[in-house]
């Protein structure tokens, strides 16, 4: 907004001058207030961006500051409040429940991210096909899981994964394998949660990949096919390199979301502790448990800060890897 009005003014101003030299143009100061929109010298810009910043202050910055402060307190929301310095953090680092939750979270993240990545790229490749009929319909359908309520997803999947009457176990038994307890078995519960996440986000990511694929110049494919490259070779050597940045983007966004998995494990077991041996307790579930079952807001805030630190570390690793990849690209 402000940029356009300023540049318009400078163009107008330059017209009035006899010698419209580009060097002089820079020195021309914005016109004095003459009334009207332009006279506010871009102050309108602040007004129009204000709603975002006001919302961010209330719902973003204020909670961040608040939780950072209470992390240094023994903070019972309706009881005693006492400053205890770094004690929450030292206790947290010695708390095996925290490390268990971290391990669970990373395992669920890995189980949900990598298969999902492969599947959504595959889906996008199918959708890119020129001869596919009903393209818009397919693309719309892909988004349906994403707009379904997480709780509804968890309930339906809870039935599918049921130990005694669940459909998935019926299929497993059909192939002669023993029934799996998708709640009590640690790894199986992670698979169940990862499946819910994958189902929910696969289509969404496929659309991002599709958009990126469509941006790859058609000539590359033409010359590749002239050189005799098969469809698979084209995918490997033209499509995948073209998707590199998108893959990084999806990975980073997926990591941030993946480290905050909450609703799925909560509804799978129905409790805040994430199963009888905490086998699917994730970081955010642990945070919630500390805040609202043990009423330890300070401790929970400390968990929240550590989650932020972990997300930062993982994002930096991601960033460094991408930088290295793209610099290799330019060599």
């Amino acid at each position, binding site marked *: 907004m402000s940029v356009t009005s300023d540049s318009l003014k400078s163009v107008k101003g330059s017209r009035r001058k006899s010698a419209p030299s580009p060097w002089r143009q820079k020195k021309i100061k914005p016109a004095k207030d003459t009334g009207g929109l332009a006279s506010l010298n871009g102050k309108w810009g602040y007004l129009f961006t204000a709603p975002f910043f006001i919302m961010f202050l209330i719902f973003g910055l204020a909670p961040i500051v608040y939780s950072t402060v209470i992390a240094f307190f023994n903070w019972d929301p309706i009881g005693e409040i006492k400053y205890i310095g770094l004690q929450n953090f030292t206790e947290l680092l010695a708390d095996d429940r925290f490390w268990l939750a971290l391990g669970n979270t990373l395992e669920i993240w890995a189980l949900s991210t990598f298969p999902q990545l492969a599947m959504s790229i595959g889906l996008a490749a199918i959708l890119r096909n020129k001869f596919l009929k009903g393209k818009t319909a397919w693309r719309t359908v892909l988004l349906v899981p994403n707009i379904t309520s997480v709780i509804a997803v968890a309930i339906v999947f809870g039935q599918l994964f049921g130990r005694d*009457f669940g459909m998935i176990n019926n299929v497993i038994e059909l192939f002669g394998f023993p029934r799996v307890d998708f709640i009590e078995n640690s790894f199986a519960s992670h698979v169940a949660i990862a499946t819910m996440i994958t189902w929910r986000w696969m289509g969404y990511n496929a659309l991002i990949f599709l958009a990126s694929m469509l941006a790859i110049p058609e000539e590359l494919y033409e010359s590749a096919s002239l050189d005799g490259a098969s469809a698979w070779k084209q995918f490997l050597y033209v499509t995948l390199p073209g998707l590199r940045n998108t893959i990084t983007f999806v990975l980073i966004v997926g990591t941030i979301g993946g480290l905050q998995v909450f609703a799925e494990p909560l509804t799978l077991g129905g409790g805040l502790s994430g199963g*009888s041996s905490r086998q699917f307790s994730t970081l955010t579930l642990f945070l919630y448990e500390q805040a*609202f079952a043990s009423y330890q807001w300070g401790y929970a805030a400390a968990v929240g800060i550590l989650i932020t630190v972990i997300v930062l570390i993982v994002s930096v690793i991601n960033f460094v890897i991408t930088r290295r990849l793209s610099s290799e690209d330019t060599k």
Partner: protein
Amino acid sequence: MAKLFANKRFLTSVSALALLGVMSIGITPAQAEDAPVKVTVWSFGDVIQRDLVRQYQALHPNVTIEYTKYNLDDVNGTKLITQCSAYKLTKKLGGPDIVAVEVAYSGKWRATPSCFQDLRKMETSTTNVSAGVKAGLSATDLKSDYLPWRWAQGVGYDDSVIGIPTDVGGLEVAYRSDLFKAAGLPYQRDAVSKLWPTWDKFVETGKKYVAKLTAAQKKKNFSFIDDAGSIYTAMLNQGTSKYYDNDGTDAGKLVYKTNPAIKKAWDTTVAAMNAGISSKTAQFTADWPVGMNNGKFAVILSPAWMTEYIKAQAPTTKGKWDIANIPVGGGNQGGTQLTIPAGAVNKQAAYDFMTWYLAPAQQLQMFKKYGLFPSTPSLYSDPAVSGYNDPFFNNAPVGKIYSDGMLKLKPIFEGTCQRAIDMAFGAGLGRVQAKKQTSAASWTATLAALSKDKCLTTGN
């Protein structure tokens, strides 16, 4: 012009004065009574029934009862905590006028009576006199109407009264008489009650039942009771103390490590699990209603309100169910109090609604319409309750069985970390049931986890 203006102002002030005068003479009281009031209620489940709310609004056209149903953990955990901490921070009135608090959370809330209006200091107004609620009644006057142990769940550590009991759960045994018959067990309710005077005998009966199941059924976890974990809770509630002892201090004394009642309940539950009499179907999961229908289990420890749930989920099993006495006798699961938060705006209107809603006459209506069992023992001799037979449960005298059980219970002291401790022991039993740990190892792990739990170590 100016003169006219002045005249106008003069006229206005005169008429305003006149109006004030009229109001002060006689209209004021009537106006106060008819001023529209909105009472906001936060509840969960079936605590607030629409029919009764409509009745109350018909009695008092100026009162609107606006109630919202939440998830229990949301309303008693998150929402009430943020509401109270916000009130303590800003001292601003607002938010709900009535909040339903469940017994699982009562330990926590009894520790912070400052979050609630002390109901001993409230008095009923004249508004419900014609509907049977006398004027000038404080909570102290109402106390004798309710079951003592139920009343105690709404009393704060400082003896302030923070809540008045709604219905009562009780706990008896709902069983499938057809399956009992097929297994060669006695199946008439009196004979069944005699099968298990103790919990050990209950486990014995379960073993006999399970012995008759086919291998294919066992493979799908068909068994005797839906979830053996419910035995633990039932046994604890039959005692006089759980995790805390009332030693006269505000917080009570933590005794979960030494209280023999807990170890005994744990051991009996483990014995039931090891005997294979549990179908390992947790209540309110997807598999639970399926099991009610297909006979995966023959027994549910059922509070009175759960009988309605069974009817709704397994309508085709009508007549196959029956109700027998719980082992030892007397039991309870759940229970809710209606409270008025300290920051409520319309406390008087809220108190008037609450005292009407929870009075014996209305509790009787709720029992007749929704099967919610009254917490006011004066009704137990009412023919509508004592003579109530339920055709779904093979015409069992449900009213009599449950009211006999209710009168056997004693108050139990609930402490702040009640819920955290309950969850830890529940998880411990879950590990034994899933065969992840032996009973001894799980018990040790549970105590170790609790000794590190911040709720207990920070001593609040």
